[in-house]
């Protein structure tokens, strides 16, 4: 009797075996490729590879592009999220669909679309080029734009979610206390959705850092100008596998570090 009870208790306390096995398999989906990467890492050549021009240039472009895209997403994405959350208008669901489209669209398609819109012969790119002489493809700006295109949806949907969860009475209370719209936005709305905003920025940055398809299609690939870390990995995969693995390792380390640090501080909203 006692024996039976104990064994039942023990069984109760343990999570179901099937779940644990499936969870372990799920985790392996993420971990096994990383192990593959580590197994192939040329540890001895690592210092040389990491300080090579190709890597340093790619790192620089990646930092510029990911931070640039995050900044643009914040400046344009927060107002967009605000409008989607707070203004009722016809076709709002269509606009929301357009905003999340880059999440499901293959990035190459996005890159092609950007080329047709902002390229030298593009819908907007052609008049822009004729007026200002500006050429966006094959420039670092092009990289920033491609990264913004694929990454901004993360910011918009997270911030919109935060705004929807915010009780509008706080903004109302601030207004009755004499706060104008800007004061309300800066002193009440944004601080109160702080965790959503931070999570949105982190996701946006992470997506921008990993961006590949839209970049190579729209901005091309040139070391020191448009070649980001993912592009450098892709090109190096065909010429210098060691460099490719080393570059991949940098990306893994940077992304993992930032995401873990942010998770502790800010990710309450997700």
């Amino acid at each position: 009797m006692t024996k039976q009870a104990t064994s039942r208790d023990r069984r109760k306390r343990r999570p179901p075996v099937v779940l644990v096995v499936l969870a372990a398999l799920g985790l392996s989906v993420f971990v096994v490729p990383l192990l593959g990467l580590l197994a192939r890492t040329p540890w001895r050549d690592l210092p040389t590879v990491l300080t090579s021009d190709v890597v340093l240039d790619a790192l620089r472009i990646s930092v510029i592009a990911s931070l640039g895209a995050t900044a643009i997403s914040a400046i344009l994405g927060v107002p967009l999220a605000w409008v989607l959350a707070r203004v009722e208008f016809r076709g709002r669901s269509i606009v929301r669909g357009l905003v999340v489209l880059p999440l499901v669209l293959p990035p190459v398609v996005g890159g092609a679309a950007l080329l047709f819109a902002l390229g030298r012969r593009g819908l907007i790119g052609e008049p822009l080029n004729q007026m200002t002489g500006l050429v966006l493809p094959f420039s670092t700006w092009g990289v920033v734009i491609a990264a913004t295109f694929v990454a901004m949806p993360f910011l918009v949907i997270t911030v919109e979610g935060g705004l929807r969860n915010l009780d509008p009475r706080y903004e109302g209370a601030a207004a009755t206390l004499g706060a104008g719209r800007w004061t309300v936005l800066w002193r009440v709305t944004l601080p109160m959705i702080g965790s959503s905003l931070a999570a949105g920025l982190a996701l946006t940055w992470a997506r921008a850092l990993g961006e590949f398809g839209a970049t190579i299609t729209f901005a091309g690939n040139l070391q020191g100008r448009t070649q980001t870390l993912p592009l450098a990995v892709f090109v190096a995969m065909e010429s210098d596998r060691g460099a490719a693995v080393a570059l991949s390792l940098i990306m893994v380390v940077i992304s993992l570090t930032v995401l873990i640090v942010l998770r502790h501080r800010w990710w309450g909203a997700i």
Partner: protein
Amino acid sequence: MVGGDMSRSTGLDAHLVVSRGEAFTLDVSLSIPAGHTVALLGPNGAGKSTVVAAISGLLPLDDGQITLNGRTLDNPADGVLIPAEDRGVGVVFQDYVLFPHLTVVENVEFGLRSRKTPRREARELAIRWLDRIGLDDLADRKPGDLSGGQAQRVALARALITEPDLLLLDEPLAALDATTRVDLRRTLADHLGQFAGPRMLITHDPTEAFLLADEIHVIEDGVITQVGTPDDIRLRPRTPYIADLAGSNLVLGTASSGTVTTGTQQLHIADTQISGPVLAAIHPRAIIIDRHQPDGSPRNTWEATVIRIEHYGDRVRLQTGDPLPLTAEITPDALSDLQIVEGSVVWISIKATEISVQKD
């Protein structure tokens, strides 16, 4: 108590018309002179929060107008709409709506900082306010750490520090538990007394309205169904809802060892612990009316004359005279069975357990 002069230039004068689809239209006229407290009393869904939103500037009127101290705040016909931040309407919101990310002192100084008052000056004034409401030692806490009563006082200070032209209190006691509510109603009455402008109290609690307001507007389904002093409303309710909601008999007296002594009558109560000044509430339906002296358990019985009879659909209200004027409610059948007319002498009896007593 409130004069009939509607064109006074100090105070609030409002005619609020707001449509919410076809199902609901708010159409309310209000006038509050400076130094007076008007309570808007009504059930949930009657339109009280719409009134708060319209007056504070968070919801534009569809028709009508709002004038505060002679300044038009909203008038759709003339195209005038002053935004909330420029209205000078101080609001104590339901649940207080203190900013959770700011400290107590930052909450209090928020209005001043929004009006570009220099940082140091705003801080000094806010500290002085906290001192005044006895919360200066909590200045650096977050609102989440405050009790309901403390939060209410912070909300009041936050609204009053900007020296508004109108003070609007939206269910200021609803978030509190019963015992704190009694204490805070007192402090609230003090604070209201110190505010010189017009005061508006939005509430669903008749006791709150009776004790804090000079005049009560009863709102039902978006319209005002009765206006009057607390006594008018209590003694002469005009609709079944008011009779039900506001018709409770309130008696002030002094309690000691299970008895409440009023000026003219002693009431036996169930609570033997309570003592000192109290407020006794007796529901009209808890009062038993008879033609003969009843026997049995009721300990409170006396004879009184029926001075008024009013019919409300399926019930009848009797107003009785000395020694303790009360309102009782019976059915029309009982009225005819007992053959009661105005001037009849009846026996009143009330069970001690039917009298709810709270400290005043």
